[in-house]
């Protein structure tokens, strides 16, 4: 077997022109980590401001620009790409038993598009930012905003092509590059989740692209597209924006569900309960996700009839979501559970996603939504899904595949500590926001009535803990690159094809194309191949 992909050619040029999906994954990992840090700074400033009812450090205008920066950076430059472009890029070919993605050059192009879009957005943010919120609602964004709407919107437009390229690449790869014997129902559930995500990336992103292009056109030439004074309809913007952005919510959770399915099976040493239901629930979440966008507009002036229909479809989404949660629990039931760091993150995901999902039903109910909309209840709800869910899964996946990606083990005790701290800090930050919202504190204000202070201080304290907890993996991952124990090929005793090659893998992934003869998560077969007699624990290294 030849050298690992990391060191085969160490020049900068070889990295910047690489077509290797594993190296592109690392290029993406570096880029989105920078954006995650930047978005976190925005969050920190928001929480600092809200320590006191009258605000502490930011002017009202600056506060508006801060929460906009936080939203824009976190959604498009971190959450949407997060798992697909890092773990997905790294793992899709390995899990399929392939040498690379279907279109290696397109994959590299997607990274360059991503970087270019990121720079354009940063240019807008650092040359004054904008105060529209991440949703860019018109006519604020088209007529009244004094911020740098144009570069940011065009940056997000460009970002879309990066997403579409990744989606096309994954779909074609999963159809065309499965190893011999790798049937659809033998695919790891991560790949079903990424397939569903890719369908959304390919079909929803272009609608956002057109919406933002129309907005840019309106702002640039002062023509009426969405501007009511020029004959346009501002609500049409919301319809089109959410036609993308609600499915995009599932772009920001489905990959996490895929990661959790892998981790739960490995650390319970059991096949995922109800494999086919979990697989098809990903597809149905993606499909139903396209017909629920109107639930963002219950109070914006849509007809009661539309609202009832959108409410009903929104309830439907909870069915496949609940199937996943119950099947993960069914997998854990009777399993020999090991509580290593990835499993702690996965369990955190299940709990936090459940809270986020159930509170989503409050918001999908018309009468309750009238009371809760535009309050901190909404903020808490979607942070439970996106941060409690997706970011937990992202960290869980990074820990789980870190040995494979780098060839080094991370320090387990620190990993568990960080996972526990993230869970605690997260709940302290966002649970009070449910209560704040229920009591009527509106979102997106720089100040608030004094009676809300205690809960806001608790929330800000939680954010402080969360900040420390997010820095910890950065430190010990960095440490492990140089000092971590060498990772064996399959440190967790897991079943996927990615564990059948060396850690880190060679450039061509497999010395010879693997042949698949069993279902995913067949631990009996794993033991037979590796000669493990009992269903033993992990290699403790």
């Amino acid at each position, binding site marked *: 077997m030849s050298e690992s992909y990391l060191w085969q050619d160490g020049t900068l040029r070889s990295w910047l022109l690489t077509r290797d999906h594993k190296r592109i994954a690392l290029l993406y990992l570096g880029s989105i980590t920078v954006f995650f840090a930047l978005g976190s700074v925005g969050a920190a400033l928001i929480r600092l401001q809200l320590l006191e009812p009258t605000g502490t450090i930011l002017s009202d205008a600056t506060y508006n620009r801060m929460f906009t920066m936080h939203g824009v950076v976190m959604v498009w430059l971190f959450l949407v790409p997060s798992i697909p472009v890092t773990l997905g890029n790294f793992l899709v070919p390995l899990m399929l038993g392939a040498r690379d993605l279907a279109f290696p050059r397109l994959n590299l192009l997607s990274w360059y598009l991503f970087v270019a879009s990121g720079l354009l957005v940063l240019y807008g943010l650092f040359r004054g930012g904008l105060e529209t919120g991440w949703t860019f609602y018109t006519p604020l964004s088209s007529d009244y905003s004094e911020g740098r709407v144009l570069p940011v919107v065009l940056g997000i437009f460009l970002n879309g092509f990066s997403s579409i390229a990744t989606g096309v690449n994954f779909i074609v790869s999963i159809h*065309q590059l499965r190893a011999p014997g790798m049937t659809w129902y033998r695919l790891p559930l991560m790949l079903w989740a990424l397939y569903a995500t890719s369908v959304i990336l390919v079909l929803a992103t272009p609608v956002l692209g057109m919406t933002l292009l129309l907005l840019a056109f309106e702002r640039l030439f002062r023509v009426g*597209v969405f501007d009511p004074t020029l*004959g346009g309809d501002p609500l049409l913007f919301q319809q089109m924006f959410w036609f993308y952005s609600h499915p995009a919510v599932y772009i920001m959770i489905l990959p996490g569900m895929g990661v959790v399915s892998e981790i739960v099976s490995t650390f319970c040493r059991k096949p995922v309960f109800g494999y086919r239901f979990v697989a098809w629930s990903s597809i149905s979440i993606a499909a139903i996700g396209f017909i629920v966008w109107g639930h963002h507009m219950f109070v914006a002036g849509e007809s009661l009839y539309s609202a009832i229909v959108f409410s009903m479809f929104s309830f439907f989404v909870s069915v496949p979501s609940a199937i996943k949660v119950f099947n993960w629990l069914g997998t854990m039931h009777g399993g020999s559970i090991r509580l290593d760091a990835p499993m702690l993150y996965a369990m955190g995901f299940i709990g936090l996603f459940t809270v986020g999902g159930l509170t989503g039903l409050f918001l999908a109910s018309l009468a309750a939504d009238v009371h809760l909309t535009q309050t901190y209840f909404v903020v808490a709800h979607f942070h439970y899904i996106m941060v409690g869910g997706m970011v937990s899964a992202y960290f869980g996946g990074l820990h789980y595949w870190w040995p494979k990606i780098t060839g080094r083990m991370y320090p387990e005790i620190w990993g568990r500590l960080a996972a526990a701290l993230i869970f605690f800090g997260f709940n302290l930050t966002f649970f009070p926001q449910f209560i704040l919202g229920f009591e009527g504190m509106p979102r997106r204000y720089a100040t608030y009535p004094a009676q809300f202070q205690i809960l806001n201080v608790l929330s800000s304290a939680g954010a402080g803990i969360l900040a420390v907890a997010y820095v910890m993996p950065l430190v010990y991952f960095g440490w492990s690159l140089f000092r971590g124990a060498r990772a064996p090929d399959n440190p967790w005793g897991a079943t996927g094809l990615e564990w059948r090659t060396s850690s880190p893998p060679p450039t061509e992934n497999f010395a010879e194309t693997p042949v698949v003869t069993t279902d995913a998560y067949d631990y009996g077969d794993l033991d037979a191949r590796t000669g493990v007699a009992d269903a033993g624990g992990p290699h403790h290294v």
Partner: protein
Amino acid sequence: MSDGSVLDHHSPYETPLHRDESAIAGMWLFLASEALLFGGLFLVCLVYSQTRAGGWAEGVRHTNLAIGAVNTLILITSSAVYTMAVESGRRGDNRGVVRAGLGAAGLGLAFLVLKGVEWGQEFSENLFPGPHFALHGPEAGAAALFYSFYFLATFLHGMHMVVGIGLILWICRKARQGAFSPAWSTPVDIVGLYWSFVDLIWMLLFPLLYLIGRA
């Protein structure tokens, strides 16, 4: 990928056919994405052509139907000519690919020239929305709205035409080097998919921008 009948060293595919099928699937997915990009535009046009019907129709009546109709014919013909390039490619007739490709690209260029003439007229008649917009009256706002979409849609379609002509010229260059054979002419097919798609978009834009509400 200068010689398409063999795989290059890093290819993730088993056979050239396997690679070519994947490439065609990739183009179809990209076109699905493009369809939704334009779909957003069509949706907004359709909404306004109904909710602001009077002024919208006023705008439609000021478009140049003659140029629009001629351009439609040119583009359909160009697509038809390109299918001859596809057929030539499959036979390995590289000269045929060049001939038909240049014909299709030439017709595409003619479309763009006519479109440019049309835009020139419209700019000189102050039909571009703004403070000096030519149309007046109670429905002028909706007419300006129509022209916003007219210019944006034709601009985006024009950009796709430019890309398409570039791709066809690239195919012609490859064909002149004798790249295609009965065993391998996939790029000719893939560019054909794209070129037909650009044609199809125009088939929807033409009624939306020139016909609906004109009578």
